[in-house]
C-alpha cells in the first residue's frame, strides 16, 4: 500500500483527525509532495463500489481511505453512485485557520436518480480555496503548468454506518448503571 512500511506495535491505528487528513495528506498530495508515510492510495481511476474497497484503499477499523479527484457530477461507481447529503463542515486547524471542507455523501445502489439508499457513507475532504491557492502559489514556480490540477484532489473516507459497541464508549446500559449509582447515594435521616 505505499512505499513506507509503517511498523508500529499493536494498537496503533490510522485514525487521522480531519486536520491531519487535510493538512498532512491532502495538502501534500495536491502539492505533489511526498507523503510520509505514503499509506493512502490513489484510486482516482477506479470506480470501486464501497464494498469493493477492501484491499484497494487503506483500511483501518472498517474505514477506508483513498485519494481521488473532484467530480463535477455525482461520483459514479460500478453499481451505484455517491450522492451529496448537503452537509458540509469546515475543517479548521488547531491554529484556528480554515484549511479545508468536509462533505458528507451517501451511497445509492443503482442508477441515478432512482438508486436505493445504502448505509455507506463517505467523507470527502477538499482543500479550502485559500489553502489550495496557497499551496499552488508555493509550488507555482516549479509546476505552474499543472497548477489547476492541485486543487482537484480530494481524500475520501468511506465506512458503513453501524451501531457497534467497540468498547471505546459507554454502552447505553453502562450509562443507565452509572445513573442508577446516584440512587445509592441517597442517604436518609436515621
Amino acid at each position, binding site marked *: 500500500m505505499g512505499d*513506507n512500511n*509503517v511498523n*508500529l*506495535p*499493536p*494498537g*496503533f*491505528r*490510522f*485514525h*487521522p*483527525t480531519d486536520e*491531519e*487528513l487535510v*493538512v*498532512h*495528506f491532502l495538502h501534500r498530495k495536491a502539492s505533489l509532495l511526498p507523503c*510520509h*508515510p505514503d*499509506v493512502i492510495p490513489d484510486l482516482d481511476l477506479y470506480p470501486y463500489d464501497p464494498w469493493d474497497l477492501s484491499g484497494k484503499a487503506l483500511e483501518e*477499523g472498517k474505514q477506508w481511505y483513498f485519494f481521488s479527484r473532484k467530480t463535477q457530477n455525482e461520483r459514479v461507481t460500478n453499481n451505484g453512485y455517491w450522492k451529496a447529503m448537503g452537509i458540509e463542515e469546515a475543517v479548521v*486547524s488547531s491554529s484556528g485557520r480554515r484549511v479545508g471542507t468536509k462533505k458528507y455523501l451517501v451511497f445509492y445502489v443503482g442508477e441515478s436518480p432512482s438508486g436505493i439508499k445504502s448505509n455507506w457513507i463517505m467523507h470527502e475532504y477538499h482543500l479550502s480555496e485559500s489553502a489550495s491557492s496557497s499551496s499552488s502559489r508555493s509550488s507555482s514556480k516549479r509546476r505552474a503548468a499543472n497548477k489547476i490540477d492541485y486543487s482537484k484532489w480530494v481524500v475520501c473516507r468511506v465506512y458503513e454506518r453501524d*451501531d457497534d*459497541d*467497540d*468498547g*471505546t*464508549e*459507554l*454502552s*447505553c*446500559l*453502562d*450509562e*443507565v*448503571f*452509572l*445513573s*442508577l*449509582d*446516584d*440512587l*445509592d*447515594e*441517597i*442517604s*436518609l435521616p436515621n
Partner: protein
Amino acid sequence: MPDGMSISVNGQSQVPPGFRFHPTEEELLHYYLKKKVSNERIDLDVIRDVDLNKLEPWDIQEKCKIGTTPQNDWYFFSHKDKKYPTGTRTNRATAAGFWKATGRDKVIYSNCRRIGMRKTLVFYKGRAPHGLKSDWIMHEYRLDDNTTDTNNVSTMVMGEASQEEGWVVCRIFKKKNHHKDSPILSSTTTSSITAETRNLQMFDSCTNEGALEQILHYMGRSCKEEDETNNSNSTCARFLQPINTGLISNINGGYSFLKLPSLESPNSTSSGQNCGYGQSMNAEMVTDSDQGTIGNKNQVSNNLVYPNIHIDQTSLTNWVALDRLVASQLNGQTEASRQLSCFSDPTITMAYSNDDNDMQIPGNLLRSSSSSSNKSYHATTQQHDYNSEIDLWSFARSSSSLSSTDPICHMSTSPI
C-alpha cells in the same frame, strides 16, 4: 504544517501522522498486559505505570500523553493493591476523590475464548459516600487467572482472591454527555419507603460499618461475585433493584417494570450464549455450602431481598436487547410456568423457589413492610409455593387498575 506533526513516544521512536494508539480490548489484554505480567519488554513504551492512588484523572491525562496530538483516551498499567490486608477490596482513592465501580464486569473474548474481564469505574470527587460524580470513566482490564476452564468452581474461588491484586491495564476517558437525560432516571425521586427498606436491611446485615459504607462494600462484593460465577443471579439483581425502587414509587406509570423480576425464566436463560442455567446454579449451590466468605456474601445478598434476575450479559448490551428480553418475557409468561413441571432436577427447583421470591418482593415493598419483609420472604421460599406469584400479579392488577391502562400490565397478568 511541516514534519513536526510526527510524534514521538517517550522520545524513543516516531509515530507517523494520522496514527493513534487505539488498541482493541484483545490487544490490551493479550499483548500489553500479558507482556507486563510476564515482565517482557514492550516496544515503544506507550503504556506507562501509574499509581492510581497518587494521580488524579487529569494528572493521568498529562502523564500518559502520547506525543502532542489531542487524545480522547489515555492508557496505563496499574498495580492493584488491597485496601485492607485482610479484606479483598481494592483501594482506589486519590487525594481528590475515588474511583468507584459501576455496572457489571464485561467478559472479554478472543476467538470465542474468554481471556479477561473489564470493569467500569467512575471517578467521584470528594470522599465516599458524599462524592460528586465526575465525567471521568475508567475501564480496568484484567487477565483471567485461568482461562482454560471457567466452569471449574475452584478456579472461580481462586480467581476472586487474586482478582484484587496484580497488574491491570486501564483506559480512562471523559464521558460524553449525550445520554444524560435517560427517561428512567429522570425519576430520581426514589420512594422514601423503598429507600428506607433498603437501608434498614443494610443495617440488618452489617452492624460494624455505616449503612452507606455497607452499600459500597456490598457493591464491591457484588462485582466479585459476578466474576466467580460468571453470571451470578444476585449480581444482576443489585443493578436492577434500583429500577424497581425507582418505579414502584411511580406505580401508575411503571408497572411494566415490575415485569423485570420474572426475567429469570427458562426462556430467557436458555437463549443465553455462554451461561448454562445449571452452571450458574451450580455455582450458587457451592457458595451456599461453603462456610467461608463466599457463603457470607450469598447470605448478604439474600438478606437484601434483591430479586434474583438472571440476565445473560451478552444479550443485554443495549436497549434493543432489553426490549427484546421484555418482549420475550411477555410472550413467554405462560410458557415459563408450564415448563415448571418439566424440571425434576433439584437445583432447578431451587431456582424456581427463587423465582417466587422475585414475585413476592415488589408486593412486600409495596406494603412498605421493611424488616418484616425479610421474614415473609423466607417463609415463602420454604413453602415452594408457586402460586404466590399469582398473588402478586393480582395485587398488581388491583392496584393498577385504577389508573394504569398499560397494555404490558394486562398482558403480564394474563391467566397462567
